[in-house]
Each structure stands twice: as C-alpha cells, then as structure tokens.
C-alpha cells in the first residue's frame, strides 16, 4: 500500500511539499448522492486530489509526471491516470527507456492489470524493434512467476508479430513444457509459433516433428487435455490425414492397454471412429478390457461401447457422452 514499498520510505504529504504549494487540490466529486461511495485512505485521497488539479489544468510538467507515478502506485487500475501520464510523456518528449524501468518497478506484484500491459505496449511500440529483446525478457520474467499469465502471453504474441524475435520461441515453449507439461498457455504458444513464425515454414512443414513431440508428451501424461488437443490441431482441416496417421491410433491403443488415465484416449478413439477409422481386433480387445461390469458384454459396436464407458468413468460429462452415443449412425 502506497508508493515505494520496497524502500525505507518516509513519505511526505503533498501539502507539506514546497514544490506543490501553488496548487489547490481538487476533491473527488461523487455527485450529490454517491451510488457506490468508496471509502478512502488519507494518503490516497491527497494524491488523487492533487492529481485532479493537474488533470483539470492539463498541466504537462515533470512534477505532474511524478505525481502520476505516485497515483499509479496507489492504484494501477486507474486508467485515467495512465492516459494523462501518456499525454505528459508525449508533451515532455520523455525518455521512454526510463519509462520501461518505471513499469518494471511498479509491475512487481501487480501484473494482473490491463493498464500496465497496455501502457507497456504503447511504450514498446514507440521504441520500435530495438525494444524486442527487453520485452521478451520482461514477459519471460513474469511467466517465470506465473507461467499461464494471460496478459504476459498476449503481450509476448504482440511483440513477436510487431517487433520480431521468433528465433528462440519454439525452444522457449519446450522449456516451459518441460517445467509443466500441463501448461495450456505454452501449448497454445507452441501452436502460435509453428503456424505463424516466418522462420519455420508453417503447420504442414512442422507436422511430422510436432506429432513426435506431442505423442511423447501424451505417453508421459495421458491425462493431459492440452497435448491431446494440440495433436488434433496439428491436423486442422485435414481430417483424412489425421485418421490415417497410424501414430494417432497407436498412441490411443497404448494408453488403453495401460488401463490408466485413458479418458482422452477413449474420446480420441471415438472421434477417429466417427471419422471412419477401421478399428482392428486389437482395439476391440483393449476397449473390452475396460468395460465396467454393468455394461452389456455382448454389445459389439465399438463406438457405442466407448461412449458407454466414457459415460461411466467421466460422470460429470455423462450427458455429453450420451449425446455422442445418440449421434452415432444406427447399426
């Protein structure tokens, strides 16, 4: 709470500071009968009263700039203060490298904030491609604390497309996935890279190596929703190729035979069957071995059996699996 929390800070009230003696603070106008009146702390009240004064006077001075910094430290969500700060930065032709330092400082513990990220993007855009590295390092830092940070990933994608730096991105995804193979954001970024990187040749060119990578990830953790979706995504728009790639059906079979964490293996098998996969006896045996005791041992339709098992072992989504069963062609 309050500015400069990381230092031994004796904060002087604005009304006590000589450089502000010519300014009359402007109190918050909540209207005659505030609908959702907010309770304030004294320090915050004072900073905002002075901010309002410079904002209404449109004073674009160095002291106004530092005042916006104080206001932001109290409440980084206050978008009006950020707007005004940008106007002041522009008017002063301020050094935007220092602005990045400022952002770095106040981002500590406040990273879930749209305004900070938007301001950062504004600064980086003005600095241009020279800031690509800094931006990659910054997002990397945030992601090292929270590897699924939505704003950080969004910013990183913008940086790649606007300022470059694609070279190491696939490796970075691999690193993150090594730390946490369940990181859906990292899988999404991986897809982003293989489909959009100007250095990699596109989805088709990457498909083979990516299938190998993903199959390995699936075998290590078959309960990982992200890896299964990624695998399917590698064949986006190419259902026939997907059905006919033996690696897909083989990985399903392996997991079914292991009898552990096979929900996604079953649902993928179901999808394959619905797309025309001709399943051999190996599949029938593996699925039969998973049948729960209440299921009809004589129901020979493989797809129906898969749906029935899923209804039992994934009861939260029983209605969904039942719907899938109803959608199967009548035998």
């Amino acid at each position, binding site marked *: *709470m309050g500015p400069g929390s990381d230092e031994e800070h004796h904060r002087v009230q604005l009304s006590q500071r000589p450089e502000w003696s010519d300014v009359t603070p402007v109190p*918050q*106008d*909540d*209207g*005659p*009968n*505030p*609908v*959702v*009146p*907010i*309770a*304030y*702390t004294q320090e*915050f009240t004072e900073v*905002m009263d002075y901010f*309002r004064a410079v*904002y209404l006077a449109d004073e674009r001075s160095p002291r106004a700039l530092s005042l916006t910094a104080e206001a932001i430290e*109290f*409440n980084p*969500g*206050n*978008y*009006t203060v950020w*707007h005004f700060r*940008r106007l002041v930065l522009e008017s002063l032709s301020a050094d935007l490298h220092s602005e990045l330092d400022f952002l770095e400082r106040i981002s500590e513990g406040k990273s879930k904030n*749209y305004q900070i990220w*938007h301001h950062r*993007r*504004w600064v980086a855009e003005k600095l241009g491609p020279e800031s690509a590295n800094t931006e990659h390092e910054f997002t990397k830092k945030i992601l090292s604390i929270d590897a*699924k940070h*939505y704003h950080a*990933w*969004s910013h990183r*994608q*913008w940086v790649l497309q606007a300022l470059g730096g694609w070279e190491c991105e696939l490796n970075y995804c691999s690193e993150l996935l090594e730390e946490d193979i*369940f*990181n*859906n*954001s990292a899988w*999404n*970024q991986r*897809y*982003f890279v293989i*489909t*959009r990187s100007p250095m990699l040749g596109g989805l088709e060119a990457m498909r083979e190596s990516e299938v190998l990578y993903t199959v390995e990830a699936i075998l290590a953790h078959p309960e990982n*929703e*992200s890896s299964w*979706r990624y695998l*399917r*995504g590698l064949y*986006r728009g190419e259902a026939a190729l997907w059905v006919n790639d033996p690696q897909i059906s083989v990985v399903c079979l392996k997991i079914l035979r292991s009898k552990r964490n096979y929900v996604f293996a079953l649902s993928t098998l179901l999808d394959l069957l619905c797309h025309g996969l001709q399943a051999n006896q190996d599949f029938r045996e593996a699925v039969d071995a998973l049948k729960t005791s209440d299921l009809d041992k004589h129901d020979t339709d493989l797809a129906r059996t898969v749906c029935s098992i899923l209804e039992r072992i994934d*009861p*939260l*989504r*029983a*209605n*969904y699996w039942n*719907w899938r069963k109803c959608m199967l062609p009548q035998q």
Partner: protein
Amino acid sequence: MGELVTEKHVKYILATEKRKDDFESVVMEHLRMSGAYWGLTTLDLMGKLEAVDVNEVVSWVTSCQHESGGFSGNIGHDPHILYTLSAVQVLALFNKLDIIDVDKVTKYIVSLQNEDGSFSGDIWGEVDTRFSYIALCCLSILHRLDKINVEKAVKYILSCKNMDGGFGCTPGGESHAGQIFCCVGALAITGSLDLIDKDLLGWWLCERQVKSGGLNGRPEKLPDVCYSWWVLSSLIMIDRVHWINKEKLTKFILNCQDMENGGISDRPEDAVDIFHTYFGVAGLSLLEYPGVKPIDPAYALPVDVVNRIFFNK
C-alpha cells in the same frame, strides 16, 4: 449444503455504499460504473432493485457521459468503451435509456471500430475481443447496430477462433472462457452463431467442469465462480448447457457464499467481492435457481429488461 442467502447478499451490496476506510474499495474508484452494474443487476435478479434510488443513480450516470458520447468509470475520469456499456446497462435496468443522447453514444462506439473490424477500448487503441462484444451489445441495446460494419466485426471475431473451438483476446490468443463469452455473445447478438462449431466448443466448455463441480476458464486452472457465468452463458447460447453437471455447479456456487455477512467469493473460503457476487447470482439464474429472475445470456441483463428493450419499442 446451504441455500442462497438472498437477504444477506442484498445487505452486503447495499452496505458497500456505507463502508468507510476500506482500502479494498479504493482500487475500485475508477470502475465504479461497472461496480454499479454488477451490484444493481444482482439486486434486480433477486427482485430488490427498488431498494435503490433511481434518480440518484440516473443523475450520477448522466454526469459520467462525455462530449465524445462515451461514459467514464466515474466522475472525473476519461471515457472508455467498458463503462459506456455498463452505463447503458444500468440505465436499461431502470428503463431510463431515453435520457441519453443515443446518437452521441453511437458516434463514440463507431469511432472505435478499426479497419480490420476489431474495436479499441478507447482513443489509446487497446484491441481485444472484449471490446467487440461491448460495442455490439451496446449498439444492439440502443437499436443502432447498423451504424458499424457488422460484417467486418464478425470477421474479426472469427479470426480469433482457435483450433480447439474456443476464442482468445486477439488472433492466436489462448482460448479463455471470458473471451469465449464475449465472442459467442457478439455472434449471438449479430445472428452469426452458425459460424461456430458448437459441438467442438461445447465439448471444450463442458471440460471446464472439475471434480468439485466448479468451472475453470482454461485447462488445468482452478475453478472460479465467475466462470459459472462465462462458461454457462456460452453453453446456453450454443444450446449445449446440458453437457455440464448443473447440480454440482449449483452446489459449488452456493458454497462460495459468505453465509454470515453476504457476498460471494471466487471459490469457497475466499474473501467476497461485488464482482463474484454478481457472477455467482447470475450463474444461479442461468441454472434456474428458485427465487432468482431469469437473465439473458447474451445481454447479461434480466430477461424482462431485455424484453422491454426489444419488444416494447
């Protein structure tokens, strides 16, 4: 398991007005317009909107409109598309849409559409599919949807569709339940739901339900009451809500209540706030919980309010 402690929630919302020296509230000052929307809509859903003075609200909302036509989060703040929608929604609750200059608001929103069909939040240019939803929802309520390029708006939203069937904040952005609600809502409002793969998206959405019965926003994340709205309303808009276990979700939301002091939190045992109180009650509304008025999944306003907007014109 508890029931919905309506009276406590009403007290909690109204008490927020009277609370002093609460630093928590300090950080909400600039988004008071959205806070008002969350609080007032929740009151209306519980049939208690009359506890609030219409004239006070309307006069304050009016004082937040700027020359540009946009509304700010509070007096003394800059206009933004977020608070423009919240303002319009609040006025709709009170059937006071006639007090605003519709042409001006329209002009403001139209000015925020970009070449590629996307929308910016304000003059500073942040682009996000949230703003697409807001623009379309707002203009639809004001019967001015024809003033923007709807085709391009839809095209941009579709460009944010991912291979898992979900939607992100920008093209290539990770699928996230909040962004999905915005994109599905926008497509619903523009009559373009046929452009969604409902089965694929429906499955992604129902996979958000975890063992506790709650919903998360992305794979392998924790459940949060706000997803009870975003996931649920999306499922309803694409006619797939029966794919989740409604009973378990209801239990999860009810467990997030503060039974003593009112209010709802993101997950059981955490601190409550207005934001999650709204989403919890709105979620229960979608689940047809007794005593809660029905809410429109696309407009996020009570159904009777939406009917008034579109059928009494």
